[in-house]
């Protein structure tokens, strides 16, 4: 039986950013998304470390794009969430909502 993999906070944020309906999720866009939505800037290396862990857990797949001059001749790596990854993100999100439902002194969305 496969051991259940749990998501860390940054992993969950990265996975949710990859799942956004855009289709071309890559490092810079994911980092910008997280910075816009959470209000804190994350290092690109941290994003890539989370992406590596997520890919290792089977929640993401990656594919290499074409090298472009605007990136100094380096290729982009595009990421896509797998069905397992989407299910895991939904479960983690639902768990967070359930846990935060009874927090004192605050209304949940």
């Amino acid at each position, binding site marked *: 039986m496969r051991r259940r993999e749990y998501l860390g906070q940054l992993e969950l944020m990265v996975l949710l950013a990859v799942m956004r309906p855009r289709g071309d999720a*890559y*490092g*810079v866009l994911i*980092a910008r998304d997280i910075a816009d939505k959470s209000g804190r800037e994350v*290092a*690109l*290396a*941290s994003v*890539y*470390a989370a*992406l*590596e862990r997520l890919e290792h857990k089977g929640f993401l797949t*990656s594919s*290499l794009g074409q*090298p472009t*001059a*605007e*990136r*100094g*001749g*380096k*290729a*982009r*790596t595009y990421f896509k969430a797998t069905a397992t990854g989407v299910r895991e993100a939904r479960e983690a999100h639902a768990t967070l909502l359930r846990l935060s439902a009874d927090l004192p002194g605050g209304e949940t969305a």
Partner: protein
Amino acid sequence: MTARVPPRIATWLLEYLGPGYRKESLVGDLFEEYQRDRTRAWYWRQAFVSIVIGRSIGLRRFLRRFAAFRGTSAPRRSTPIRRLLGVFAVTALSAGTLTWACAAPRTPQRCTLQSNSPQGRPSIVPGYAGLDGQAGGR
């Protein structure tokens, strides 16, 4: 429009010491982001953080592998048969060392004391003289 060139040393360090996973894309992402009016300090900080994260990931992997090795080898070492073999090996090694030490032949001092040197003082010359005082080598 010409692209801003990020600090070369930082890029070089990143390419050689950065994390192994998708390094080319990470360098390209930093290059792309640097074009959006990011400062050189920002680029240096990102490169430094990338190197630290890359090295720490490598160290963590090594420690995990080491811990896994210890975890798999420890129970095997503690089985009765392995313990018995260990005791036998230590005993055999000790007995062998003792036997060798007791049975080792004493090598004679191969030198001769000569008293007929020109200075009149006795001197030690290499070589065994034998019972009749004739100096000779092996």
